[in-house]
Each structure stands twice: as structure tokens, then as C-alpha cells.
């Protein structure tokens, strides 16, 4: 199962998403959802393991991610990177990991709470492709998965 978090305006890119990403997928449009910034409170690691303290629409996303293999982020860009709307939904991924640390491929990492998750990025606008590829690799590696790639979307 592939979960696609589309942080662009709903509908604007649905055609492109289905051509660029293969297989069984569910697209979640986050632009009209209530999702706050992660506040770094650590409760999902140390008080209610796996459960975010912020009660908003992200909980439904987490419940889908625990049975997904692949996660794609669809995001606009700013300053050469994904914009804050795209980054916001990735910052909230923390409950998918747990507090414990280990060395994975020689690097300090948190343990994955459920299972490895692969990560890919579809982006719009002008950005640093090389930077985004490295970011995608690092994000995937944090979740013990691999990068599915970084793809620039065509203009509508």
C-alpha cells in the first residue's frame, strides 16, 4: 500500500500523481485538513508511546501509515526546499519512530515503531534537485526504508 500526502491544492495535480506513482495507492489531500505543526513535546516518545498529543486530522494519517509500505509527499517548494506545508506533514511523522536508539548502517537512528517505510517526493516549482534527493534519502533512512525518488512535476 502506498500513501500519498498531497499538500497542494486539492485536485490540481491528481492526474499527474496517478501517472507518476504506480500501484495501489491512496491520495490524502491535506490542504483542507486541520494539521498543526509538531510542537516537539516528546510525549509520543515518552508519555503516550506512538500517540501524538495534538488531536487533529493527522491521527487518521498515522493510522494509515502503520499499514503502508510507501509514503510519497507531494509538495510545493520554497527557498530551494519543500515549503512549510510539505515540511509540516513530515515533522509530524515522529510517532512512527520510538525513543530507543540504535546504529543502522553505521548511523545513530531511532528504532522504527512499526516497520520500515519507503519515502518519495513529488515537487512543484523551482528547487535544488540534488538537495531534495539527499533529503529524501535521509528521511527514508530515518524510517529504515529507501528513497523512492524525487520527481519534479510538470506545469499544469
Amino acid at each position: 500500500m502506498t500513501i500519498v500526502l498531497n499538500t497542494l491544492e486539492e485536485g490540481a495535480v491528481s492526474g499527474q500523481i496517478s501517472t507518476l506513482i504506480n500501484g495501489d495507492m491512496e491520495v490524502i489531500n491535506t490542504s483542507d485538513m486541520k494539521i498543526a505543526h509538531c510542537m516537539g513535546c516528546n510525549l509520543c516518545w515518552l508519555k503516550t508511546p506512538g500517540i501524538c498529543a495534538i488531536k487533529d486530522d493527522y491521527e487518521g494519517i498515522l493510522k494509515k501509515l502503520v499499514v503502508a509500505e510507501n509514503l510519497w509527499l507531494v509538495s510545493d517548494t520554497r527557498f530551494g526546499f519543500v515549503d512549510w506545508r510539505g515540511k509540516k506533514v513530515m515533522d509530524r511523522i515522529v510517532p512512527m519512530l520510538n525513543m530507543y536508539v540504535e546504529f543502522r548502517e553505521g548511523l545513530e537512528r531511532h528504532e522504527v515503531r512499526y516497520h520500515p517505510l519507503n519515502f518519495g517526493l513529488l515537487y512543484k516549482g523551482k528547487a535544488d534537485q540534488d538537495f531534495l534527493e539527499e533529503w529524501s534519502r535521509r528521511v527514508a533512512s530515518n524510517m529504515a526504508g529507501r528513497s523512492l525518488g524525487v520527481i519534479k512535476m510538470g506545469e499544469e
Partner: protein
Amino acid sequence: MHVVIINGSPRVQKNSNTDKIIQSFGKGLQASGATYELYSLSNRQEWDAAREAFIGHDQIIFALPLFVECVPGIMLEFLESLPTERKSPAQLSFILHGGFDEGHQFRLGERFLQSLPEQFGCTYGGCLIQGGSFLIRFRDDEKMKETMTKKLDAYIKMGQSFVSNGHFMTEEARKFIGYEKNPWIVHLLFLIFIKRLVRKNFERFAQQWGCTRPLDDKPYLL
């Protein structure tokens, strides 16, 4: 010298490790005769004043924790609200920290921060990096307290160094990051000894917070 410091962490100021780092760094600034004003992005009420300060001053430092390999989303949102052109020149510098202690964990975040100043018409004043800040908040025995006091004191020195050099582009600031990767001996010690100790510490912290579930709980798995 007058410095505007903006805390880019989303965590409330009283629990913010970034704030504790800033307080120590600020002591160093003051000890060398500089002054500073501080804004915290975790408090939306301070955003307008932070923006005004960014526009009106020439020495600006963003201090931030690494979040998912880069800048926290909340700080990106604030950056988007800033003007990208300036009337008067300014220098933009950064203090980047995070839980893990290996230097390489911060390099991508650093690369992003390096690219920012010119996008706001500013010059780059360097990036002071150090990991291992998780225990700033959790020190609960003498040894941890001692280690963390030493860590925060090092920021006082870097505050003084910032006043005398005017930036973080010094050998001293470059070395502040420590090990790029842990040496093999640490990996070995981790496997046979440290891992268990660290897990016990985490479990103790969790207990203090009233946690009743195992830390590797899987609440959403049916």
C-alpha cells in the same frame, strides 16, 4: 554589537533546549559588552515583533533544533513571511543543534541554512553546530547535570567569540560540532554496554512523565 536572536523551535519556551542554549550564548554576548533581544516562534504573538526586528537590525541569529533532517516547519512558515529584499545590509547566522551527537547528522541542515542568507539579501555569518542536546531537558542525576552544565557553558564562550570575531566562520566554531561520526569503539561499547544504559534512562524519564505503556508500544496496530 546588538544581536537579534530568533528561536526557531516550535517547543514552548520554558521546555525549549534551544532557549537554554540561547540563554547561555546570550550570557557570553553580554559578558563581551554586546546586547541582544530574543523572539520565540513557538509563541505566535511574537511573530510580528520578530519580523520587525529582522527587518530593522543588521546582526541576526536563528537558533533551531534539527527537525526531520532540516529546518522545523514552523520556522519555514516564518521565513516565508519575511521580505526577501532589504534596505540596509545585514548578516544572518545560525545556531543548529539536535538530539543525536554525530556531526554528519547536521550537514544537510547546515547546507540549507548556508543557502538562506542570500535569498534574503543578507550575508552569511556561519553556522554553529552541536548535537547531543536531548539531556539538556532531562538531566536528573549529578553526572548528567555536570555534563550538561559543561555543554551550556561552552555556548557562553561561543557568545564571547561571536562578539570578538563578528561571525561563526572561525576554527573554534567549526570544531564545535565534535565527531563527524562516532569512532568504531563507541559502536562496540554501545552494543555491549551503552545501549542498555540508554534504554534504562529513557524508561526512567518516561516513568517520571507518568507513562504506563512500553516505549516501543504499537498503539495503532490491530
